[in-house]
């Protein structure tokens, strides 16, 4: 029994030694980021390229969930939870229900794109935009300093109710207006 334990200790020490040499911490960190990044980006591509619009909407939900997990990766669990709740739990469902209520019988071709010249032009424009952003991002020497800001909920609440109270109230009024407006639009102002 002791022999077996010593053997296991030897193997583990060798493994952890090589892992420290290879800097396993950053490797795992980076793999989590890249996994979430590919989920978000590939789902976003699927939203745009999919022929079936319901598949597009479901891939949009996957993109939202990927972005939410990225927020949690960035030590902002509150924003991550807000993303899941609002985007994944309300906006996505709203979009899917709208698609099902404005439904044609055949859903498999229900996400048409414009003609090929339009698509080429749009690709050129988006590509140009991405190149500009990438150039600016890569040429700026960012120093990545992460500060541990503590409990985000109390900090956010303090800021929301003292320094940013006016945007908070305006956002509340905006949500109320949007709710009433959506009800009136969907039902009709003169119908009972």
């Amino acid at each position, binding site marked *: 029994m002791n022999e077996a334990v010593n053997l296991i200790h030897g193997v583990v020490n060798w493994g952890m030694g090589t892992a420290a040499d290879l800097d396993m911490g950053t490797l795992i960190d980076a793999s989590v980021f890249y996994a979430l990044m590919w989920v978000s980006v590939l789902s976003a591509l699927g939203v745009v390229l999919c022929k079936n619009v319901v598949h597009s909407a479901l891939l949009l939900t996957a993109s939202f969930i990927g972005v939410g997990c990225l927020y949690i990766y*960035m030590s902002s669990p509150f924003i991550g939870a807000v993303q899941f709740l609002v985007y994944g739990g309300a906006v996505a469902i709203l*979009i899917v229900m709208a698609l099902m209520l404005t439904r044609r019988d055949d859903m498999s071709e229900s996400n*048409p794109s414009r003609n090929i010249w339009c698509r080429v032009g749009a690709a050129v424009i988006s590509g140009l935009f991405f190149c500009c952003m990438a150039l600016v991002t890569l040429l700026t020497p960012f120093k*990545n300093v992460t500060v541990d800001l503590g409990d985000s909920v109390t900090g956010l609440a303090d800021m929301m109710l003292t320094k940013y109270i006016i945007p908070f109230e305006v956002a509340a009024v905006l*949500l109320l207006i949007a*709710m009433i407006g959506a009800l009136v639009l969907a039902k009709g102002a003169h119908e009972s």
Partner: protein
Amino acid sequence: MIDIFSLSVMDIVNWSLHVGLAHFLLLAAVLFSIGLYGLLTKKGIISTLMCVELMLNAANINLVAFNHYRPFQDFSGQLMAIFSVAVAASEVAVGIALAFRIYREHGSIHVDELNNMKG
């Protein structure tokens, strides 16, 4: 100005392994351009709304990334992201309601066919 041609493969691998602000900004740029492509290309109202949501998400990633990777002492980036999420949600609600009405009046949700006010 960084001399691009003197970068070796090992430098690029090393840069991409240490995840920093630039990576998140690039991710946000990719999502935004995908959304932009979709917005310019799609014919259905709801598909365009979905691409607008992608672009808004990209902007939110930017806000939260700047909050996390710069030494501010407060949570302004996250707070702006919360307000952005609230505005986006209300915009989607009103947009979907509009899409319903349009579908009921015209029977189609393709933006090219909604040209009553043209000319």
